[in-house]
């Protein structure tokens, strides 16, 4: 029998150790994993593209999508949707469409121990809401500061705010007003309006009239295009004499606007995407090839949310518990995830550590970068 020297033994042990290290990374669950998707249609394509790319890499995931009505629902509706996802055994939920819906679903996922990855709900109330909630974007507090700084730099001193009376609208309006007035500006008029489901007989006309004719330099729309355009009295937007318009990340969504961009031409809104991101440009190219249209903000974040889940599965995560551990370790023991919206890792309150907002302008119905 040939004598096996110590160097051969150590080589064998090294190979064995390497194999043990590599094997878990290669380990993938044999069964297909479900991801619950409760997002606005503008985000569904991004998630779909991410799933297709993951499957091409041999990572077996599938989306369980919700109808637009269900994805938009808040309160009991959002809870019921999250519950149906949990019952169907999803590994995670990506959603919801609004801060209010995400807030409603958060308690349920925390109880059910299923990670909720929030692509673009910006309410500060979601910070630290539970150990199973992870937000990929910044908060309204940050968004309000970015918009207020832009308004001040642009020379606007008298601002008005039109805000929807929900967590998104109030959060953004408050953050903007505080920051703008700290810089020396003055919020001369703020008008809140109820959401359609609250006040189906509501009329936005008088509020818009006051804002248009109030001698303001700038008006912040802390609201969503689809609400604004569907409310009675929205025709006021088409009239002349509007001051400069600012908006939050959902103030103008081309898909919602349905081609009606004229009232919002020139409006500056925040974007969840970093400025001049090569990864975002590559994603946009793939998106155009696949869907034949321009990607919208939520698609980028949804693409990242699903990609993040895929990365966890590729690293050996086989269920919600593994996924939560993976997400918590990002940026600590594991490097931050390189997404199309930037580097992703989460702080102890579940918020994205390096979240930022850039500014874009509505030009011919599309969103283009604001050049300084």
């Amino acid at each position, binding site marked *: 029998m040939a004598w096996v020297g110590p160097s051969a033994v150590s080589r064998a042990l090294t190979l064995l150790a390497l194999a043990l290290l590599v094997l878990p990374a290669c380990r993938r669950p044999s069964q297909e994993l479900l991801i619950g998707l409760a997002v606005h249609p503008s985000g569904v394509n991004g998630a779909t593209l991410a799933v297709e790319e993951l499957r091409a890499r041999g990572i077996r995931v599938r989306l369980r999508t919700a109808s637009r009505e269900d994805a938009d629902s808040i*309160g009991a509706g959002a809870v019921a949707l999250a519950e149906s996802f949990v019952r169907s055994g999803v590994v995670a939920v990506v959603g919801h469409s609004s801060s209010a819906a995400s*807030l409603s679903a958060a308690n349920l996922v925390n109880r059910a121990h299923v990670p909720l990855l929030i692509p673009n709900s910006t309410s500060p*109330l979601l910070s630290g809401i539970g150990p199973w909630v992870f937000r990929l974007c910044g908060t309204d507090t940050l968004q309000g500061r970015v918009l207020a700084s832009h308004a001040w730099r642009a020379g606007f001193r008298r601002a008005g705010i039109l805000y929807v009376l929900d967590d998104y609208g*109030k959060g953004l309006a408050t953050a903007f007003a505080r920051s703008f007035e700290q810089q020396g500006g003055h919020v001369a008029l703020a*008008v809140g309006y*109820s959401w359609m489901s*609250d006040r189906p007989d509501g*009329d936005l006309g008088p509020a818009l009239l006051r804002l248009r004719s109030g001698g303001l330099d700038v008006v912040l729309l802390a609201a969503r295009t689809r609400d604004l355009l569907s409310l009675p009295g929205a025709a006021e937007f088409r009239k002349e004499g509007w001051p400069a318009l600012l908006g939050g990340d959902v103030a103008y969504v081309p898909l919602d606007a349905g081609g009606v961009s004229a009232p919002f031409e020139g409006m500056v809104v925040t974007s969840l995407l970093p400025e001049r991101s090569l990864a975002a440009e590559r994603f946009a190219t793939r998106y155009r090839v696949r869907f034949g249209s321009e990607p919208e903000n939520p698609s980028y974040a949804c693409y990242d949310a699903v990609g993040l889940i895929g990365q966890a599965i590729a690293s050996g995560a086989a269920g919600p518990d593994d996924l939560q551990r993976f997400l918590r370790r990002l940026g600590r023991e594991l490097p931050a995830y390189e997404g199309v919206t930037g580097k992703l890792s989460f702080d102890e309150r579940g918020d994205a550590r390096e979240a930022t907002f850039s500014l874009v302008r509505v030009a011919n119905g599309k969103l283009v970068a604001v050049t300084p």
Partner: protein
Amino acid sequence: MLLTALGLLPFVALAYLGVQAAVETRRAFANLNASLDTLTEAVRLEGLVRQGIADEMGAAREYLARRNEPAWQRFTRLTWTTYENEARYLGLPLTSEERLAVERMRTQHRLLEGVLQEAMTRADGRAVPGLEAQLEAAEAASTRALEDVSRMLQERMAQMAGTADAAAVHLGRLVTTLAGLFVVSLLLLVVLLLRAAEMQRRLVEAERLAAVAQVGVTLRHEINNPLAVVVGAADILREVRDDPQAVGEWAEAVALAAARIRDVLRRLEELRSVETVDYTPGVPMVDLEAKPSGPPPAPKAPPS
């Protein structure tokens, strides 16, 4: 030594239990304290939200009555401040039921704000149809939601009081149990120490008896022989009393035997350490032939 260690064992166990009980009690009181802080903050915020809603309504009604812009501004600021207080409220570690109650309160508050805001916005133009009825309904719903939250807070306060009482009773029991255990351990230690002293005494006694037995064996061995000579010589002397030479020889034998006995007794007196040899297998006796290892005896004072 072993008994002392065994006697201390209950005290070590007692100390461990005591430390564990203290840590548990501290943790329980820390939890209670945290819950109390949450409750205090919840009560404070509930008061602020309640006041905020009342102030919002006051500002809105003032604007509707007089159309003055400062009232509108005040209304807006109040809605934001109340929103922030509601947000802080939701940020507290609430139970699911409490959270749902606060959410219901916020929804009702939002509806009320919507009615007020629309009335204020339209006030410059046409009147809002059925405004008063809408306001009343929204206000009533908002008040009911606030009352729900208040009721939950009161329930939680009652629950906290119950928890505090239970903790105090638990602590009392714990102290009583520990005191009882301490007394029992103390008694056990005393009993063990008494038993140790008794065993020590018995050991000394046994050693003393063993020494006496060894001396007895020695005396029997060392004195019996010359004594036999003395006794035998006495008998012979009675028979040979008429033979002066034999009397002299036997008297000499008696003297030698007596000297030997005296010598044995002297060596016994001079013993400073006891070394034994087997007299017969298993029967030790003091070895009088061994060299003395202790200090020499102090010279005796001559008899006066």
